[in-house]
């Protein structure tokens, strides 16, 4: 919502500065979005006369001009390229140091092709005011040299733009803004009492309201013998300043009231209306061309205004082209209606029409203002266009909008945190237009003004079905009963200023606060820290990805595809954070950063719901030791990552089962699944499937992992048992077994371990050999076992017995023989 200072002053008697007004607006909930003060931004542009203009010695298209721009700038040399620059021309001049908004430059003194130039002569385009011009501005001969151009052109009215919150439709009226400002002490609201224009004849056009739900009340009036044409300069300037293009007197007058009173109006050209009746009714699928020249097909949910030939207006949104007024119009019918906000909002959304009228109707206009607005508009039309007015024709009636609200003074302190003197409370409310109905030393009851649709508004509740019906009803009543008082508290605090409410620290609810996060939440934090400790860098990727990427990385069900994505590469909820990570890695490679270790802890979506997954990608080479060769990232790096995290999160990693059942996007022979038991899957790790390596355009295979943190069964931290720390030195023994190539090393290790679960505290792999020293189709698996004597030193024969048991168990479970 834009308005100018002078327009505001039509309604507000004030001497306050623009800055003071803006500070007040910000405080009372009318947030200032911008202030344009042309006398500040364009004050440097002066009116000047070109004294002489001569051909530039070194450039065909340039002239060297001597310019008189008034005091201090009586004889300035300017090099100018405009074809119309000539001696005697009165134009706009900007001295050195001026910021030129149209070209976004700040002028400096300098030489142009060897000739000194100390400023610039301008068109309005360069001031950011008008369309492209051929050459520099040509001002009238008598324009006062040295005066600021904005003062001469009366462009010096500051324009303030405020944001309107959805509840404050009333502030889409300059008069109501003035009222708020008066309440907060920025001046006095001027009285406004439009004169009643007596009708001189009965209106030939009548209303036929068939859609009272959408239009409870409508006024109309014929004005005959008008003369349309361009509006006076002051009206055009105001409309331009607030962003409305002046069209013609009759249209400009309706737009004037849209801003001045927040009261949209419409004028029909009576000579183009077919028949004598304008029907307000639901649409019937007809097509009509609106004032924007576009064709709309109306539905039975839209409220339209139709004559005998068809739809002439999409009510509350936009009038029709056919009955719109033109320069030739001589008789008009003025419409001043009250429309249902929801009907207008839905029609606007349905037809993608955003107009100043819609903006006001959908937030709700002043429900009582119609007669006065009609009189004010009539008077303005008569004043500017001449003519005579008919009687007012009315359909429907003023709705019963009256309601009261009661405020207990004590609630201001008990709820609002600020004690306010009752007299002050009443003053604020009355200055905002509330009427005192009843008053005692505890409370005040006021009537709500007709324009404040946000106070004690009726609105439906949406109680959760789990709440028992009688409790729900009771709570609903309580909430509704509280509404008026809280609305009034808000009004008082808004005007008093929230800054005056003393800030009170929250009372301590526990001397020492308990942990803010649950054990599960803490686990996710720890998971990220562990991964970073492994050298991986955390990323945050969007939860949605390209559905084709999602399909290749698991699944892309229609149910998880956005109905309204902003682009096709962000249309599918990702099945795994890898769907975000892999493209991210690829982007870094393209930028020339090919050694990547990334992880993300974030949501993964499936038709079963959301889970949190810690996923990671390693690509390129591992950090190089100075005396070692750079190693390509390998499966072992990501397997270590996963074990490190699971161990850190308290999983008994020795009990993990490693199997080969991995999702389709893993290399089937180079990936593993970690689970506790067959059902509880904790992680996958491995190489990206070769076909995906190719599709993503990687030069080598990324190593990937996913940890399903939600699946880690969390045990509450318990006291640990005292550790058993035998004093006897452990013994180490090495074995090498020859097994068939397809025997998994993991099996050999677990077979050996099984030989004596008490004595064997560790079984480690130290070599796998395949080559001519073992039989073809076989490999040698060398392991080292650690024997920990428990309560005494071991005798040689005991050691030998364990060794034999190891050999036997490995043979039994893997078919391996001692090498």
């Amino acid at each position, binding site marked *: 919502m834009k308005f100018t200072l002078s327009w505001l002053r039509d309604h507000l008697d004030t001497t306050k500065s623009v800055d003071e007004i803006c500070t007040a607006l910000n405080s009372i909930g009318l*947030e200032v979005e911008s202030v344009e003060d042309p006398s500040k931004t364009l004050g440097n542009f002066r009116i000047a006369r070109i004294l002489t203009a001569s051909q530039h010695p070194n450039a065909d298209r340039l002239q060297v001009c001597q310019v008189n721009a008034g005091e201090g700038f009586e004889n300035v040399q300017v090099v100018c390229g405009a074809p119309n620059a000539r001696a005697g021309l009165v134009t706009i001049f900007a001295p050195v140091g001026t910021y030129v908004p149209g070209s976004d430059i700040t002028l400096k003194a300098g030489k142009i092709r060897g000739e000194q130039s100390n400023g610039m002569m301008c068109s309005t385009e360069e001031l950011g005011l008008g369309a492209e011009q051929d050459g520099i501005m040509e001002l009238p001969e008598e324009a006062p040299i040295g005066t600021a151009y904005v003062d001469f052109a009366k462009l010096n009215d500051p324009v303030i733009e405020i944001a309107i919150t959805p509840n404050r439709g009333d502030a889409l009226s300059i008069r109501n803004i003035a009222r708020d400002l008066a309440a907060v002490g920025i001046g006095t609201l001027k009285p406004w009492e439009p004169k009643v224009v007596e009708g001189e004849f009965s209106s030939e056009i009548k209303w036929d309201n068939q859609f009272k739900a959408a239009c409870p009340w409508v006024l109309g009036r014929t004005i005959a013998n008008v003369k349309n044409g361009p509006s006076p300069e002051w009206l055009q300037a105001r409309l331009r300043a607030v962003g409305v293009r002046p069209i013609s007197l009759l249209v400009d007058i309706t737009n004037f009231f849209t801003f001045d009173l927040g009261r949209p109006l419409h004028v029909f050209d009576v000579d183009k209306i077919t028949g004598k009746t304008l029907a307000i009714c639901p649409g019937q699928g007809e097509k009509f061309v609106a004032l924007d020249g576009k064709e709309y097909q109306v539905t039975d949910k839209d409220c339209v205004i139709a004559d005998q030939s068809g739809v002439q207006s999409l009510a509350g949104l936009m009038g029709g082209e056919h009955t719109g007024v033109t320069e030739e119009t001589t008789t008009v019918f003025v419409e001043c209606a009250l429309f249902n906000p929801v009907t207008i909002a839905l029609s606007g959304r349905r037809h993608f029409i955003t107009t100043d009228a819609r903006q006001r109707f959908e937030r709700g206009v002043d429900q009582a203002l119609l007669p006065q607005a009609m009189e004010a508009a009539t008077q303005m039309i008569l004043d500017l266009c001449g003519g005579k007015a008919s009687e007012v024709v009315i359909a429907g009636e003023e709705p019963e909008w009256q309601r009261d609200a009661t405020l207990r003074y004590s609630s201001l302190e008990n709820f609002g945190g600020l004690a306010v003197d009752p007299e002050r409370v009443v003053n604020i409310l009355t200055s905002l237009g509330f009427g005192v109905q009843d008053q005692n030393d505890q409370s005040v009851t006021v009537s709500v003004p007709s324009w404040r649709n946000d106070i004690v508004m009726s609105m439906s509740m*949406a109680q959760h079905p789990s709440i028992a019906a009688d409790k729900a009803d009771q709570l609903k009543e309580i909430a509704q009963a509280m509404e008026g008082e809280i609305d009034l508290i808000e009004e008082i605090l808004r005007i008093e200023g929230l800054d005056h409410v*003393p800030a009170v620290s929250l009372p301590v609810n526990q001397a020492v606060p308990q942990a803010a996060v649950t054990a599960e939440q803490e686990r996710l934090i720890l998971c990220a820290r562990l991964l970073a400790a492994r050298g991986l*860098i955390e990323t945050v990727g969007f939860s949605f990805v390209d559905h084709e990427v999602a399909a290749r990385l698991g699944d892309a069900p229609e149910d998880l595809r956005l109905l309204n994505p902003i682009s096709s590469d962000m249309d599918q909820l990702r099945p795994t954070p890898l769907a975000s990570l892999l493209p991210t890695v690829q982007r870094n490679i393209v930028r020339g950063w090919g050694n990547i270790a990334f992880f993300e802890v974030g949501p993964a979506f499936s038709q079963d719901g959301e889970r949190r997954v810690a996923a990671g990608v390693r690509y390129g080479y591992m950090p190089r030791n100075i005396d070692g060769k750079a190693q390509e990232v390998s499966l072992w790096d990501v397997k270590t990552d996963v074990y490190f995290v699971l161990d850190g999160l308290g999983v008994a990693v020795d009990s993990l089962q490693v199997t080969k059942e991995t999702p389709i996007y893993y290399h089937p022979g180079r990936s593993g699944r970690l689970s506790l038991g067959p059902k509880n899957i904790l992680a996958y790790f491995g190489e990206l499937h070769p076909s995906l390596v190719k599709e993503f355009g990687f030069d080598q295979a990324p190593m990937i992992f996913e940890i399903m943190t939600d699946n880690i069964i969390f045990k509450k931290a318990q006291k640990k048992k005292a550790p058993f720390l035998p004093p006897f030195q452990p013994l180490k023994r090495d074995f090498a077994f020859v097994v068939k190539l397809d025997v998994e090393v993991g099996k050999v290790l677990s077979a050996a371990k099984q030989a004596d679960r008490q004595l064997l505290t560790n079984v480690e792999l130290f070599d796998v050999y395949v080559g001519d020293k073992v039989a073809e189709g076989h490999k040698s698996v060398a392991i080292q076992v650690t024997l920990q004597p428990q309560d005494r030193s071991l005798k040689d024969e005991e050691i030998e017995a364990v060794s034999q048991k190891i050999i036997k168990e490995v043979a039994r479970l893997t078919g391996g023989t001692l090498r």
Partner: protein
Amino acid sequence: MDQDLESIKQDTLSALDQAQDLRAWDAVRVATLGKSAPLTQKLKELGKCPPELRKERGGILNRLRDELTQAIETRKVVLEERALNEKLNAEAIDVTMPVSVTAGMLHPLRRTIEEIIAIFGAMGFKVAEGPNVDTDWFNFSALNIDENHPARADHDTFYLPTKTLDGQQNLLRTQTSTVQIRTLLDQEPPIRIIAPGRTYRADHDATHSPMFHQCEGMVVEKGLTLGHLKGCLVDFLRAFFGIPHLPVRFRSSYFPFTEPSMEIDIGWNRKTGELGGGSDWLEILGAGMMHSRVLANCGVDPREWQAFAFGMGIERLTMLKYGISDLRSFYEGDVRWLRHYGFSSFRSVALHEGI
């Protein structure tokens, strides 16, 4: 001293001088003090000496032996030192050769979330969570945004094609306020929660991202006033930015789920970006006393319980605190950016260490 002994002495000293390593030195030692050394022999033969000369002769020989032993030991120290120096020289390596430090990093958004948790945690808040995919009831209706409310259109919601069993439209939550509702339904007051999380709006330009992070906060207690809301947020902002006197301004505003509603600005200098100074204001938070309808929608008696709620943009807070200029860079995953703005996982987020 006879000629013989003088030559033993001179020979030994010169041999020691010539001994350049410990092996040569040891040869000299053996040749001088060993069993078959001439001096040793002479000492052995002392018994054959006439008794009247024996004492004098013995004294001479023993002194010579002591003198030579001393010289040998001294030489040993010199040679050992030389040997050590040679070894040290030989072992020297070029320590200017580079090593690679490849610490991992945590994302700055995580850091901010953890700091928020630490500060509100100290004020007795707990972290609550809710799903990313939620329904229009949790995201709008329960929050007093009915179907025709203009705020619904303002939110640029991403919708999913599915509905829940009870007919609620599935969508990506546009605000973490959904967690307020879930918490009110799940827990009995008194409640102090914050809910950091991902939120989504169909908007993408330099200052809007289709996904971003919010942190919701809610307090439901008896005897709360708007003054507590102000105190809580002022306390938070000053702790978070580490500026004890950070100017904080409260402006009336509107949210459907709070009344009175307000927007909160902090003082800063728009030109330099310096927080706490300057004469400009920067919007940073939205807040308000929870609307009685929202409480009633969730089964809480608004006469009995007072409540306030607030919401803040986590990216915004992060950008301000660390001077990050581009919103989009948070999600781009540029390794150079992540290394630049990332945090060590070993850096604690704790009030006693300073947030």
